């Protein structure tokens, strides 16, 4: 059984997801020691901008992004934000795209500083997904993220999931594709206010439908704690195994640090600034 990690990276005007993916792959090699496959649309950019990428990425899969213009606001701490295009809607294609029998799919802004995700491989389950996030700012209430909307189903996060290529997971990803194609119908049924498509919502709806619209223990969670720092926080520095952060308060920041953890860094601007420093040595 081949095992590996699949990443998706489609650059937008001011956001270099390819850079994030290469750094993410570097950490995967360091801590999980698994093969990495990158799905992207521009191999020329990859080779030109990051000629060292082959050290960390084993497979490059070229696909175009879907012709759906979506925009979202990205914050860089409390005082800067930017509206940008976002192309990552083809995550449900991971079943066809993955070169591995067992695959972990993670966002490129997930930083891995331990080997706990390796527990996924060899699992008796066909599919595992992240649900219960730990926010680095533990004093803030983020219960709004527990549900897709206040009246509907549980929220699962497509940020990190694991699957085996089986008939069951094929049905699951086909269902997500169907939800995506009929997004406006499903978002109204599930009372989702934002118009734009989000993988997290589609995965959560598919899970809710597959488990008969009821609570169930399926799907089991990815066997590691995933920590989150939101985009109003600022990533200040990355050391060997430690992240130093500024956590946002109402009009101010609070210093924090976390080590030996898997951390989803939502402030992509500050993440890219930190990666630039790391890549100076490449």
């Amino acid at each position: 059984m081949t095992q590996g990690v699949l990443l998706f990276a489609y650059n937008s005007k001011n956001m270099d997801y390819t850079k994030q993916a290469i750094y993410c792959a570097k950490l995967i090699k360091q801590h999980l020691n698994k093969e990495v496959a990158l799905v992207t649309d521009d191999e020329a950019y990859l080779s030109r901008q990051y000629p060292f990428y082959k050290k960390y990425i084993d497979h490059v899969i070229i696909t175009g992004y879907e012709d759906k213009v979506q925009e979202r606001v990205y914050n860089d701490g409390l005082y800067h934000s930017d509206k940008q295009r976002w192309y990552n809607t083809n995550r449900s294609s991971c079943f066809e795209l993955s070169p591995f029998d067992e695959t972990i799919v993670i966002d490129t802004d997930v930083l891995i500083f331990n080997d706990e995700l390796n527990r996924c491989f060899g699992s008796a389950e066909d599919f595992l997904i992240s649900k219960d996030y730990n926010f680095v700012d533990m004093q803030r209430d983020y219960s709004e993220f527990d549900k897709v909307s206040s009246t509907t189903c549980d929220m699962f996060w497509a940020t990190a999931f694991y699957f085996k290529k089986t008939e069951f997971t094929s049905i699951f990803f086909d269902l997500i594709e169907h939800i995506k194609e009929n997004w406006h119908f499903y978002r109204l049924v599930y009372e989702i206010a934002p118009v734009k498509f989000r993988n997290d919502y589609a995965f959560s709806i598919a899970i809710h439908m597959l488990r008969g619209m009821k609570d169930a223990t399926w799907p089991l969670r990815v066997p590691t704690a995933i920590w989150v720092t939101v985009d109003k926080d600022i990533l200040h520095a990355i050391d060997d195994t430690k992240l130093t952060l500024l956590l946002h308060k109402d009009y101010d920041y609070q210093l924090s640090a976390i080590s030996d953890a898997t951390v989803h860094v939502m402030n992509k601007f500050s993440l890219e600034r930190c990666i630039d420093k790391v890549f100076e040595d490449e």
Partner: protein
Amino acid sequence: MDERLEQALAVSKSLETHQNQKNILHKQYKDNLIYYFDGHKVSVDLSLINYCTNSTGPVVIVDDNKTPVLIDADNVIAFTKQITAMYDTASRKYLVEFTKIKSKRSVKELIGL
């Protein structure tokens, strides 16, 4: 601003930072007490260790996903050793990390800047 109030607010900020770091360590400690094996997820505590230690035959436990697991008689000793070692390692790590931050007085020292 009144100097006394300014000082009090600075102390309050520092205490808040301390508390958040303590909360992070405690959450990481709880996560380190989870034993994953054969697709099962078991939160280890002293009562589970005690129960397994005192069992003379096979043991059935219900994991965190509500799935029953049979630990057969041949494996009970090894299983107990593993969860005990895990509990011990996690608790010691928590102690070491907690002690490090307990003595730090400034935010700068606390974060290790």
